[in-house]
């Protein structure tokens, strides 16, 4: 047992070290770990509107959720919208390939900065602007399409249940393609150039090189963007909430209501904390699974301390 006792110096060393991390640790305990345990507990209880008076009801909240067609629809909406949102990957890849191909120059710097611009614009401004861009009558997109079709196009990009998912996806891709481009571009530029030179000598053309060298070398970049894109998509809330006018129902016949909007509705509009906590747990499990895949792919926690 003697070697477990600390010398005075070691004790001092430990106290100093802990003085650097103790505030953050307490913060995480109080604001992350404890609330997370509360979420689990609430999800198994019936909770009064005031947030007190718990009554254990087992998995009733979960059963109740899955018996609601609106919740099941929110899950499927969220998955569909997340997958549609993955369009940012090919779009960003296309931008990156084009920007990369003009060579390292001032012009490349300009495009890099310019294409990333939409991502830096305050979200709420973007949503306000796109509410007008996507208007059925007189909106920019419909005007633009009318030019091509040759007759007046009237599509309710945000109101028509058939098109609303495309409407919000357009906004999502417009905002996030620049980010995807940046990640794609730095991945592209990390591919050793001599592979391409060797391929040129073997007589490969540009398309061969793209398919046989570039794309296989981008696998980890694509999977990173895929996983993080799905994680962001699952917790999607702000853009749809604002663009449909601060409405947790999401408008467009409910085709836009995501899981988080559903949770919001049952937390703050018609509070039923037990049900909304059960919804939160389901969201948590989805994100957890994806994050674990991400950790496996990127070797995040392998990093030795």
């Amino acid at each position: 047992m003697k070697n477990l006792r600390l010398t005075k110096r070691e004790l001092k060393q430990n106290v100093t070290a802990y003085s650097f991390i103790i505030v953050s640790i307490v913060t995480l305990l109080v604001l992350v770990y404890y609330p997370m345990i509360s979420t689990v507990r609430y999800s198994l209880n019936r909770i009064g509107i005031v947030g007190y008076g718990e009554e254990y009801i087992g998995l009733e909240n979960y059963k109740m959720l899955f018996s609601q067609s609106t919740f099941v629809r929110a899950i499927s909406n969220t998955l569909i919208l997340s997958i549609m949102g993955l369009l940012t990957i090919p779009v960003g890849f296309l931008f990156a390939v084009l920007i990369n191909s003009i060579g390292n120059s001032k012009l490349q710097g300009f495009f890099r900065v310019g294409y990333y611009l939409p991502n830096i614009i305050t979200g709420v401004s973007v949503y306000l602007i796109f509410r007008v861009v996507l208007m059925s009558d007189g909106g920019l997109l419909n005007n633009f399409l009318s030019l091509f079709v040759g007759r007046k196009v009237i599509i309710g990009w945000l109101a028509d249940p058939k098109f609303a998912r495309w409407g919000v996806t357009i906004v999502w891709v417009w905002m996030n393609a620049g980010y995807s481009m940046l990640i794609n571009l730095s991945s592209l530029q990390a591919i050793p150039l001599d592979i391409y030179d060797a391929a040129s000598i073997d007589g490969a053309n540009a398309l061969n090189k793209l398919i046989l060298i570039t794309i296989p070398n981008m696998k980890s970049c694509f999977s990173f963007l895929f996983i993080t894109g799905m994680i962001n998509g699952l917790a999607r809330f702000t853009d749809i909430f604002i663009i449909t006018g601060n409405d947790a129902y999401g408008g467009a016949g409910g085709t836009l209501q995501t899981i988080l909007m559903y949770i919001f509705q049952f937390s703050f509009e018609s509070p039923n904390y037990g049900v909304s906590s059960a919804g939160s747990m389901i969201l948590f499990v989805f994100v957890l699974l994806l994050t674990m895949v991400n950790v496996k792919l990127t070797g995040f926690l392998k990093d030795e301390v």
Partner: protein
Amino acid sequence: MKNKKKALYLTTIILFIMFLLIVLPLLWAVSLSFDRSAISSLPSFSLIPHKPSLFNYQAAAKMINLPRYFLNTIIVTTVNTCIAVLFALMCGFAFAKLKFIGKRFWYVFMLAVMMVPFESRLVPLFLQYRNWRLLNSWIPLMLGQFAYVYGTFFARSYISSIPDSLAESVYIDGGSEWRVFLSIIIPLSLPVVSTLAILQIISNWNAYLWPLVVISDYDKQMISVGVALFNSNEYATYYGPRLAVAVLSAIPLIAVYLVLQKHIVASVAVSGIKQ
């Protein structure tokens, strides 16, 4: 060789056209915001206002207290960024350079938080702050910043690469770890500081869900929520003023971006890959 040059020109032109298409909605919005004829119906498309005027901005100034929201957001963003970056550096330093019992445990304890989406603890966190009677203040927006997990991870890997020999002179003079941290580590970590600060400023400026939930007084609200609430109320049928508000609230971050463009692009690219 000639073909190569042609391809280069062609690609550049394509990139330019796509760039114009991307920024077209923004240019249109700016034009509408200065257009007196954009009231309850939209005028036909034009990048030059049909009836140029500042009316929409004057109307917006009466409908929404933007300066107040700006001020609130600037205060909270500044405080939050300073807290988050400082504590990320402190933790990063401890995990990179110091020896202590339970180091591995606490490191995993922190990183595991990344797997818990903020949204999944929204309800209990809200109730917790309500029990503490701290709702409708900025405190719930700020307390969480005392642990910046992603920043800790990022700072740790950067600080690890700072050679130990630099700190030795301080230790020899009898200086403490805090002395090393303040006089050696912080000055050498400025690149990390600026990257993390940029990421924090962007995310604080755009914060929406949490301020919406915890703050009920309009006077205390952040810019994103304030503008979205304005958008959803009855005045919002007037396009011109609404777009004037959209343009105004986009200006601060765009201004920062224009000044720090290369740096921001680099920060985002690096943070994305490491994430």
